Protein backbone atom coordinates (compact mmCIF):
# COMPACT_ATOMS: atom_id res chain seq x y z
CA UNK A 1 0.00 0.00 0.00
CA UNK A 2 1.48 3.33 -1.04
CA UNK A 3 0.08 6.04 1.20
CA UNK A 4 3.01 8.45 1.11
CA UNK A 5 4.67 9.88 -1.96
CA UNK A 6 7.14 12.50 -3.08
CA UNK A 7 5.98 14.57 -6.06
CA UNK A 8 8.00 16.61 -8.53
CA UNK A 9 4.83 18.28 -9.87
CA UNK A 10 1.93 20.24 -8.34
CA UNK A 11 -0.09 18.21 -5.84
CA UNK A 12 -3.52 17.21 -7.14
CA UNK A 13 -5.92 16.95 -4.24
CA UNK A 14 -8.98 15.39 -5.90
CA UNK A 15 -7.54 11.90 -6.50
CA UNK A 16 -5.98 11.84 -3.02
CA UNK A 17 -9.27 12.71 -1.38
CA UNK A 18 -11.18 10.28 -3.61
CA UNK A 19 -8.90 7.43 -2.50
CA UNK A 20 -10.02 8.04 1.08
CA UNK A 21 -13.76 7.85 0.42
CA UNK A 22 -15.13 5.07 2.60
CA UNK A 23 -18.68 4.13 3.62
CA UNK A 24 -17.47 3.70 7.21
CA UNK A 25 -16.08 7.24 7.34
CA UNK A 26 -18.05 9.99 9.01
CA UNK A 27 -15.15 12.42 9.02
CA UNK A 28 -12.29 13.62 6.85
CA UNK A 29 -9.59 16.09 7.86
CA UNK A 30 -6.84 17.49 5.70
CA UNK A 31 -3.86 19.77 6.11
CA UNK A 32 -2.11 21.80 3.44
CA UNK A 33 1.31 23.37 3.93
CA UNK A 34 1.86 26.39 1.67
CA UNK A 35 4.95 28.37 0.77
CA UNK A 36 4.77 31.71 2.59
CA UNK A 37 6.50 34.92 1.67
CA UNK A 38 8.61 35.26 4.81
CA UNK A 39 10.54 33.25 7.36
CA UNK A 40 12.21 34.47 10.56
CA UNK A 41 11.62 38.08 9.49
CA UNK A 42 13.23 37.65 6.06
CA UNK A 43 11.12 38.16 2.91
CA UNK A 44 11.18 34.93 0.88
CA UNK A 45 11.04 34.87 -2.91
CA UNK A 46 10.59 31.13 -3.32
CA UNK A 47 12.11 27.88 -2.25
CA UNK A 48 13.30 24.48 -3.30
CA UNK A 49 12.70 21.21 -1.52
CA UNK A 50 15.15 18.39 -1.85
CA UNK A 51 14.57 14.84 -0.59
CA UNK A 52 16.48 11.63 -0.12
CA UNK A 53 13.64 9.98 -1.99
CA UNK A 54 14.26 6.30 -1.20
CA UNK A 55 14.45 6.95 2.54
CA UNK A 56 11.75 9.66 2.54
CA UNK A 57 9.23 7.30 0.97
CA UNK A 58 10.01 4.52 3.45
CA UNK A 59 9.87 6.83 6.47
CA UNK A 60 6.68 8.47 5.20
CA UNK A 61 5.01 5.07 4.83
CA UNK A 62 6.08 4.17 8.35
CA UNK A 63 4.57 7.39 9.72
CA UNK A 64 1.21 6.79 8.04
CA UNK A 65 1.11 3.15 9.18
CA UNK A 66 1.93 4.23 12.74
CA UNK A 67 -0.80 6.89 12.62
CA UNK A 68 -3.39 4.27 11.71
CA UNK A 69 -2.31 2.18 14.69
CA UNK A 70 -2.27 5.10 17.14
CA UNK A 71 -5.49 6.84 16.18
CA UNK A 72 -9.07 5.86 15.39
CA UNK A 73 -8.57 6.61 11.71
CA UNK A 74 -9.52 4.50 8.69
CA UNK A 75 -6.92 5.57 6.17
CA UNK A 76 -4.49 8.37 5.39
CA UNK A 77 -2.45 9.83 2.56
CA UNK A 78 0.39 12.31 2.38
CA UNK A 79 2.22 13.88 -0.55
CA UNK A 80 5.26 16.15 -0.24
CA UNK A 81 6.59 18.28 -3.07
CA UNK A 82 10.20 18.52 -4.15
CA UNK A 83 11.75 20.93 -6.62
CA UNK A 84 11.22 24.67 -7.05
CA UNK A 85 8.09 26.16 -5.48
CA UNK A 86 6.70 29.69 -5.73
CA UNK A 87 4.97 31.66 -2.99
CA UNK A 88 1.51 30.22 -2.38
CA UNK A 89 2.22 26.79 -3.85
CA UNK A 90 1.32 23.70 -1.85
CA UNK A 91 4.34 22.03 -0.30
CA UNK A 92 2.60 19.19 1.52
CA UNK A 93 -0.87 17.65 1.74
CA UNK A 94 -2.16 15.31 4.45
CA UNK A 95 -5.60 13.71 4.43
CA UNK A 96 -7.22 11.35 6.93
CA UNK A 97 -10.56 9.55 6.90
CA UNK A 98 -12.07 8.35 10.16
CA UNK A 99 -15.31 7.22 11.72
CA UNK A 100 -15.48 10.43 13.77
CA UNK A 101 -13.85 13.85 13.69
CA UNK A 102 -11.64 13.35 16.75
CA UNK A 103 -9.68 10.56 15.05
CA UNK A 104 -9.41 12.48 11.80
CA UNK A 105 -8.12 15.70 13.38
CA UNK A 106 -5.75 13.95 15.79
CA UNK A 107 -4.19 11.70 13.16
CA UNK A 108 -3.83 14.55 10.65
CA UNK A 109 -2.07 16.75 13.21
CA UNK A 110 0.24 13.94 14.30
CA UNK A 111 1.15 12.99 10.73
CA UNK A 112 2.24 16.49 9.68
CA UNK A 113 4.28 16.89 12.87
CA UNK A 114 6.04 13.55 12.33
CA UNK A 115 6.64 14.25 8.64
CA UNK A 116 8.32 17.55 9.53
CA UNK A 117 10.46 15.87 12.18
CA UNK A 118 11.43 12.60 10.51
CA UNK A 119 11.24 12.58 6.72
CA UNK A 120 14.54 13.45 4.99
CA UNK A 121 13.39 16.54 3.09
CA UNK A 122 15.20 19.87 3.19
CA UNK A 123 14.03 23.37 2.42
CA UNK A 124 16.31 25.76 0.56
CA UNK A 125 14.96 29.30 0.79
CA UNK A 126 15.65 32.07 -1.68
CA UNK A 127 15.37 35.45 -0.01
CA UNK A 128 14.30 38.71 -1.60
CA UNK A 129 17.68 40.09 -0.48
CA UNK A 130 19.37 37.72 -2.96
CA UNK A 131 20.68 35.39 -0.26
CA UNK A 132 19.73 31.75 -0.17
CA UNK A 133 20.24 29.06 2.39
CA UNK A 134 19.34 25.62 3.68
CA UNK A 135 16.98 25.56 6.59
CA UNK A 136 18.12 23.22 9.33
CA UNK A 137 16.10 23.37 12.55
CA UNK A 138 19.31 22.72 14.45
CA UNK A 139 21.95 25.02 12.97
CA UNK A 140 25.43 23.59 12.53
CA UNK A 141 27.91 24.57 15.22
CA UNK A 142 30.26 27.44 14.32
CA UNK A 143 33.17 26.22 12.19
Amino acid at each position, binding site marked *: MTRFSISESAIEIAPLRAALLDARAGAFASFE*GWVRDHNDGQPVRGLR*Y*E*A*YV*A*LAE*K*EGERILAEALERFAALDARCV*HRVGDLAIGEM*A*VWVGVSAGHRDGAFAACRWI*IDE*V*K*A*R*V*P*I*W*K*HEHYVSGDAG*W*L*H*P*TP*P*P*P*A
Partner: protein
Amino acid sequence: MIELTVRYFASLRDAAGIESETWQTHAHGLRALYEELAARHGFVWTPAHLRVAVDGDFAGWDDAPRAGSEVAFIPPVSGG
Protein backbone atom coordinates in the same frame (compact mmCIF):
# COMPACT_ATOMS: atom_id res chain seq x y z
CA MET B 1 39.79 -1.77 3.26
CA ILE B 2 36.30 -1.64 1.82
CA GLU B 3 34.77 0.54 -0.86
CA LEU B 4 31.36 2.16 -0.53
CA THR B 5 29.33 5.06 -1.91
CA VAL B 6 28.59 8.13 0.18
CA ARG B 7 25.72 10.52 -0.59
CA TYR B 8 25.43 14.06 0.67
CA PHE B 9 22.31 16.20 1.03
CA ALA B 10 21.44 19.86 1.62
CA SER B 11 24.17 21.79 3.44
CA LEU B 12 26.46 18.76 3.56
CA ARG B 13 26.31 18.55 -0.23
CA ASP B 14 27.11 22.25 -0.50
CA ALA B 15 30.06 21.81 1.87
CA ALA B 16 31.36 18.75 0.01
CA GLY B 17 30.71 20.30 -3.40
CA ILE B 18 29.55 16.89 -4.68
CA GLU B 19 26.38 14.80 -4.42
CA SER B 20 28.14 11.50 -3.92
CA GLU B 21 31.51 9.84 -4.04
CA THR B 22 33.11 6.43 -3.90
CA TRP B 23 35.19 6.07 -0.78
CA GLN B 24 37.63 3.49 0.53
CA THR B 25 37.83 3.15 4.27
CA HIS B 26 39.30 1.16 7.14
CA ALA B 27 36.73 2.67 9.53
CA HIS B 28 35.18 0.16 11.91
CA GLY B 29 31.99 2.16 12.41
CA LEU B 30 29.87 4.72 10.59
CA ARG B 31 30.87 7.34 13.16
CA ALA B 32 34.54 6.90 12.26
CA LEU B 33 33.62 6.96 8.57
CA TYR B 34 31.85 10.28 9.10
CA GLU B 35 34.86 11.70 10.94
CA GLU B 36 37.09 10.77 7.98
CA LEU B 37 34.76 12.51 5.54
CA ALA B 38 34.18 15.49 7.83
CA ALA B 39 37.94 16.06 7.94
CA ARG B 40 38.16 15.70 4.15
CA HIS B 41 35.33 18.13 3.40
CA GLY B 42 35.40 20.44 6.42
CA PHE B 43 31.94 19.47 7.68
CA VAL B 44 31.04 21.35 10.85
CA TRP B 45 28.17 19.06 11.92
CA THR B 46 28.95 16.44 14.53
CA PRO B 47 27.25 13.01 14.54
CA ALA B 48 25.08 14.23 17.44
CA HIS B 49 23.32 16.56 15.00
CA LEU B 50 22.98 14.08 12.15
CA ARG B 51 21.39 10.75 11.36
CA VAL B 52 22.98 8.11 9.20
CA ALA B 53 21.33 5.82 6.67
CA VAL B 54 22.60 2.74 4.83
CA ASP B 55 20.98 1.54 1.60
CA GLY B 56 17.87 3.65 2.19
CA ASP B 57 17.22 2.76 5.83
CA PHE B 58 18.23 4.56 9.00
CA ALA B 59 21.26 2.93 10.63
CA GLY B 60 23.24 3.24 13.87
CA TRP B 61 26.46 5.23 14.22
CA ASP B 62 28.16 2.15 15.67
CA ASP B 63 27.16 -0.08 12.75
CA ALA B 64 30.06 -1.35 10.66
CA PRO B 65 30.38 0.04 7.12
CA ARG B 66 29.54 -2.61 4.53
CA ALA B 67 31.37 -3.02 1.22
CA GLY B 68 29.30 -1.85 -1.72
CA SER B 69 26.68 -0.12 0.42
CA GLU B 70 25.30 3.41 0.00
CA VAL B 71 25.80 5.53 3.11
CA ALA B 72 24.00 8.85 3.55
CA PHE B 73 24.48 11.45 6.27
CA ILE B 74 21.22 13.22 7.07
CA PRO B 75 21.33 16.82 8.32
CA PRO B 76 18.39 18.05 10.45
CA VAL B 77 15.34 17.89 8.19
CA SER B 78 13.10 20.82 7.27
CA GLY B 79 10.18 19.52 5.22
CA GLY B 80 6.56 20.55 5.62
